């Protein structure tokens, strides 16, 4: 049953992505992007990745849409229908990249296999030792904040830097 739900949601996801990309009106594209983010968070919730689904529901469905709309209010809603001369290059690049990645996925383990390489490398150690070493039942939090704390520190700095960049770029006194 949840397989069926997942398949349906994935189909809806692709449809929304195509609408967002091909819409002639930019407002429609932004709203479709918001719906796409929401369906993406539903997919992750169905797959069991609740922490990530939580964040994406607020950020992808809420904050991204609001930021795009706030920016769109200051700019034009129209979009030129002419096709770009680069579209064949783009098609070649996209198909080439996709083909390369698809060629690699044939070597990927079966989806959901608990004996696959990502599942048996270092994460069993995190799952087994998280309670005894960090007193934290939530393995995602302990991996994020303790075992991989450097990564989180640098990513948080990147987030702050992006916010500062936006703040400085749009300083109203800089005319």
């Amino acid at each position, binding site marked *: 049953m949840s397989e069926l739900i997942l398949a349906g949601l994935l189909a809806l*996801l692709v449809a929304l*992505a195509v609408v967002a*990309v091909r819409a002639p009106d*930019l407002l429609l*594209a*932004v709203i479709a992007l918001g719906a*796409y983010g929401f369906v*993406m968070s539903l997919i*992750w919730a169905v*797959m*069991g*990745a609740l*922490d*990530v689904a939580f*964040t*994406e529901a607020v*950020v992808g469905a809420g*904050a*991204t849409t609001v*930021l*795009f709309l706030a*920016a769109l209010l*200051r*700019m*034009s809603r129209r*979009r030129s229908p*002419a*096709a*770009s001369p680069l579209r064949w290059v*783009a098609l070649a*690049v*996209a198909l080439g*990249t*996709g083909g390369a990645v698809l060629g690699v*996925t044939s070597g990927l383990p*079966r*989806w*959901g*296999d*608990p004996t696959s390489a*990502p*599942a048996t490398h*270092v*994460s069993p150690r*995190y*799952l*087994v030792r*998280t*309670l005894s070493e960090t007193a934290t*039942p939530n*393995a*995602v939090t302990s*991996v*994020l904040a303790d075992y*991989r704390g450097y990564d989180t520190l640098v*990513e948080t700095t990147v987030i702050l830097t*992006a*916010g500062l960049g*936006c703040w400085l*770029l749009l300083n109203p006194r800089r005319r």
Partner: protein
Amino acid sequence: MNYPYWVAIGLLMLGLYTMIAQRNLLKKAVGMTIFQTAIILFFLLLAVKRDASLPIVSAADVDPARFMNPLPHALMLTAIVVMVATSGVALAILIRLYARYGSLEEDVIAERVASDETDPA
């Protein structure tokens, strides 16, 4: 039964194509968001295990095969918030470009930049 991977790769291709082939800069930003979420979906698909529960362990049961892989979840959490922050910077750059050149189409902006350079007013 690896079809979810194909969907993630398909979205990746769609996002990449949009970023290059669309003339409108806001559509390029939309394509960037689709590309980033497709990559996150791909990583999370690697973390799924059959009949596994959330990666929240209790003292009683710590058999790793019964819990989802927490490592991709942790890595992708930061990736999502970085996605919104980079979207914010991209939109800030777009707003400045529109205020300066009056258009969001890349060819119009390119020719206005070129005419600026040949005839600095």
